[in-house]
């Protein structure tokens, strides 16, 4: 039942505050209610009114109305100071499962806001991880804690302010439109590479050093590559335009295969593969990644690395977004 209720609330919120990477806080996406202290203050006002009436004491009554006026003003100040803010989320960086992840939020306020609101302060609250921290003007990195590998949708974070006096709370639930991609924790392990053209074979699992001193491997053709570097042999085989890559990099190349790493459980294997992907990329090696049905052709470079890592992160998980 609870989940059904949550779902309805979520649906309603999505309709009311559609996901976006930046939000101007305004009447549409802001909620306001007295805090616990605010309710207590209302009780106090009632007490003071009874006190003042029963003792027929004008000063107490005056005091009572004064506190009420403060309450009233607080309501307005709370709202108006809150809607001066503009919140924008930035895309997540990529993290490993053993790292703390950070939500990147920028906060800007309307430069024309009343100087009375200069002290207003807003906090960000992430329900799932019980994180509560204040936002500074400009860029903020909010610690979200650690996540398991995979793609995570952060969902909604709450932003709230109790300025002034903490009598009222203005808040909003903003959804973070970006997907948090968490790679498996890298785990050092011995390198097991399969030779390039014998992939799938069980025979040779040893790393292969290519004979040519300079030729490092093949990569997909880019427009700026000189035409004489194109590997016509592969083209003729129907593997598309590949460029022979010359460099001074260490000449290790081959396939990383998940099957070679599975000893105990899948997670450890993925962690070890992550470590290998990073190590090989750092060396500038040419390698491919084979995860069961899903295969990434041999390549090198940062893009290739992140592609491999993403595949490792999402392996056997439903990718989000």
């Amino acid at each position, binding site marked *: 039942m609870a989940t059904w209720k949550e779902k309805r609330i979520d649906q309603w919120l999505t309709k009311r505050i559609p996901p976006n990477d930046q939000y101007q806080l305004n009447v549409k996406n802001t909620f306001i209610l007295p805090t*616990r202290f605010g309710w207590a203050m209302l009780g106090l006002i009632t007490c003071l009114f009874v006190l003042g009436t*029963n003792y027929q004491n004008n000063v107490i009554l005056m005091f009572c*109305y004064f506190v009420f006026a*403060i309450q009233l003003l607080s309501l*307005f100040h709370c709202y108006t100071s809150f809607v001066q803010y503009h919140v924008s989320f930035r895309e997540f960086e990529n993290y490993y499962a053993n790292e703390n992840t950070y939500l990147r939020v920028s906060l800007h306020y309307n430069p024309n806001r009343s100087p009375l609101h200069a002290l207003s302060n807003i906090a960000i609250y992430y329900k799932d991880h019980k994180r509560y921290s204040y936002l500074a003007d400009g860029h903020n990195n909010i610690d979200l804690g650690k996540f398991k590998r995979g793609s995570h949708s952060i969902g909604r974070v709450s932003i709230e302010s109790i*300025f*002034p006096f903490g009598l009222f709370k203005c808040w909003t639930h903003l959804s973070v439109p970006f997907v948090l991609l968490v790679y498996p924790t890298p785990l050092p392990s011995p390198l097991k590479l399969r030779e390039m053209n014998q992939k799938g074979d069980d025979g040779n699992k040893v790393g292969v050093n290519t004979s040519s001193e300079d030729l490092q491997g093949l990569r997909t053709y880019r427009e700026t590559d000189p035409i004489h570097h194109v590997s016509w042999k592969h083209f003729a085989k129907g593997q598309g335009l590949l460029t022979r890559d010359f460099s001074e990099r260490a000449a290790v190349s081959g396939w990383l295969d998940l099957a070679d790493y599975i000893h105990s459980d899948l997670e450890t294997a993925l962690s070890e593969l992550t470590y290998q992907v990073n190590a090989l990329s750092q060396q500038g090696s040419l390698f491919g990644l084979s995860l069961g049905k899903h295969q990434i052709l041999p390549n090198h470079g940062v893009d290739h690395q992140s592609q491999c890592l993403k595949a490792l992160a999402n392996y056997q998980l439903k990718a989000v977004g």
Partner: protein
Amino acid sequence: MGWVLVLCVCSFVITGYKAQKNSPPLKNSVLNLLAILCISIIIWLASDYGLLKSMINLLVVSCCLKILNLHHTGDYQMVASIQLFLIGCGLIFHQSLGYSIFYCCLIVMLFCALHAIKVRETNYKNYSKQTLLLVLQAVPIALVLFFVTPKLNPLWKMPVAKGSQTGLSEKMTPGDIANLAKSDELVFRAEFAGDLPKPQERYWRAIVLDEFDGKTWSISERAKNFPLPSEVQFQGKSLDYSVIAEPTSTNWLYSLDIPILIQGLSTQRIISTQQFQLQSRTPLHSKGLYVVKSFIEQPLNIYNGFENTSFYLQTPTTGNPKTVEYVLNNISPSMSTRQKIDQLNALFADDDFKYSLTPPLMQTNPIDQFLFDKKTGFCSHYASAMAYMLRIANVPARIVTGYQGGELQSNNVISVHQFDAHAWVEAWDKDLGWIRTDPTAIVAPNRVLAGLLSSLENRAEFRNESPFSLSLLQDYALLNNLRLLLAEIDHTWSQSILRYNQESQKSLLKKIFGDMSPRSFSYAIIGSFVVIGIFIALLFIPRQRENKKEEQKWLETVFSLLEKQGHRKENSETLQQFSQRISPSLNSTASKSLRYITKVYYQWHYSQKTHSEPFAAVKDKMKKQLSTLKAAIKK
């Protein structure tokens, strides 16, 4: 309770010390033990202090203990709300201007503290300034609410505080009042609507004492009520005045003879007794206001024939033989009451009698000792001796205590202090009723005419007894004026605070909105909420920052002038580009003057690093062109 104050100070000191040392909060178990201890003490003493005071002490104690371990924002807020409530409670007891200002400061400080919670700013100056601004915004709203929200009658009876009784007591042993004379505390202020009474007529009656045991006068247990005459005719001049009495925790109120209470304008429920006293139904725990009409020329004989005066002859059977002898020797039963009084008063005309604030002790047969031995005394000695002698002379007599005199504070306000406490005698005459006779006036006529402090001798004595009294500043004109001014302000404050009730609210609203039918009353309330709404809206309407320079404002007027003609300046356009763009669509005069304005403005605005001549001078140059431009485009 004193120990609560000590606890308060302790907890503040500990908190301050902890803040300095950054040490962790106290353990809960320690605090809980302390709390149980404190609560049991308070419950133990509850019967002595009464419900209200015990409750307040309980709150103070809990607040003090909570301060010792503040953890979360919620704790701070809890303490703050308790403290706000305590301020409300404090206002039950003290409403004078000074206290009100003190409480205001406390309120501002509290809100400062609340504001400081969850604010990044650490500079206390900043947030205190902001708090002050916010608080000031709340004041007008509070005022409107105060004047408009209907005032209700008390919803239910509240516990009242048992205060220590001050002022006159219900027993008088000669020498008692001398203690009061050493205090310059305010007792009450009376504001007269018309004439003031003459100084020698300012006898403020409070308590009538009729039982004497040889030493002490007290109120007898006898029923002093008697059937009233059906109709009472007052004659002669009357004085109208209102009295603001300071709290005494007794029922006695003060008035000139013969008081007729104007009900309905008083904060207290008051009855008038048949001894011409005013008595509040409940002890006066906070300031009270009542309005009285006094017929000062009417002799106190209105109850003649109704009152049984025989028990005003009661005397102790033994003691004071000399006095008895003296009276029996000097008074013959054939004398009229008046003659008897005069005869006895003649005794005091003797030069040997002295008026003193510090009379010697008189233990046995005090009246004998006073009359024939020491011959030095305070008003209570004289009154006591006189009343005793009158009773022996078979004249019904009683002692009245109250206040005599008072300081003229402004044209129509008399303030009476404790040192004005006085006692005098009333003797019964068949025709005239009760005749006031004041033996002190014979011994020390100045005491009655100009007050206690008029005689230098007394002032020196007074100074010895209470060296820090403000009343001693009378010698210095400037300081005295200041003192009187402060007293005046305080009086006005209490007057306006106490006077405002349902009646005055109605009359005020009547003044503003005309006659009040229920419907127009509700209109008024709605109207005032609209006023509050508008006020708040005004605070929150987004305003352009007023830091624009003069030249920009001037330029904006030019642009808005042209915009009315359909020539809108694009945001990215400069003045020159704009004027070039629109000049084809203007007539030649207009475009010429616009070009001129552009040229002058550019020359002034951009040709120097900082402006050497003020904009006003340049504005004058362009003024004429601007008006031609205006005229040209209007065509």
